[in-house]
């Protein structure tokens, strides 16, 4: 992993169209500003992991419950 040291207000550029700026720090929290084209989704990693986990759970469904479900 590439490690770069940045100060508040400084920016890194990825692939000439994504910029990540350190907006500030508060204790062990770092606030980042991300500017990227709108077709590039940017989310907290936990959100991805939660959806992956939920998808994995949902293929273990009890299919009979839905097969027997009547409106």
């Amino acid at each position, binding site marked *: 992993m590439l490690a770069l040291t940045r100060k508040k207000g400084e920016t890194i550029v990825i692939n000439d169209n994504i910029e990540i700026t350190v907006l500030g720090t508060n204790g062990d929290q770092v606030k980042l500003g991300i500017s990227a084209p709108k077709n590039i989704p940017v989310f907290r990693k936990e959100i991805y992991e939660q*959806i992956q986990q939920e*998808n994995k759970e949902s293929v273990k469904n009890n299919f009979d419950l839905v097969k027997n479900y*009547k409106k």
Partner: protein
Amino acid sequence: MVFESKNLGTIEYTQEDVINFEKGILAFEDNKEFVIIRNEDTEFYYLQSLEDDEVTFILVDLKTAMPNYNPEVEVEQLEDLGEINNNLGIYNICTVQEEMEDMTVNLLGPLVINLDTRKGKQVIVSKDDYSIKHKLFK
């Protein structure tokens, strides 16, 4: 064509029924081709992978069950679905293990399917206060 699904049994489908998830579904990226089958006249659908007979999702169309559900994504995120002519299907993945009434629905990561181009993807909606485990029958 015929596919044997572990969960659904024998499925008959035509090439036009196939939906392409080029980028796959999160955690199931190896599965690109699926067919979607309605569960009789209910709001539920099955999404069966044509590459893995054990990968079957249960989907729900929330239009009637939850008319206020309004997932927003940047239109640019739908670019890889091809030209969109008002024929978008939005389906949410269900998880149900013990009882039907305990079923949960993932509101945060819906599947968007362009029914014209037969291309689909899982998106994450911008409003991240939508629940991943929303109880549908409550």
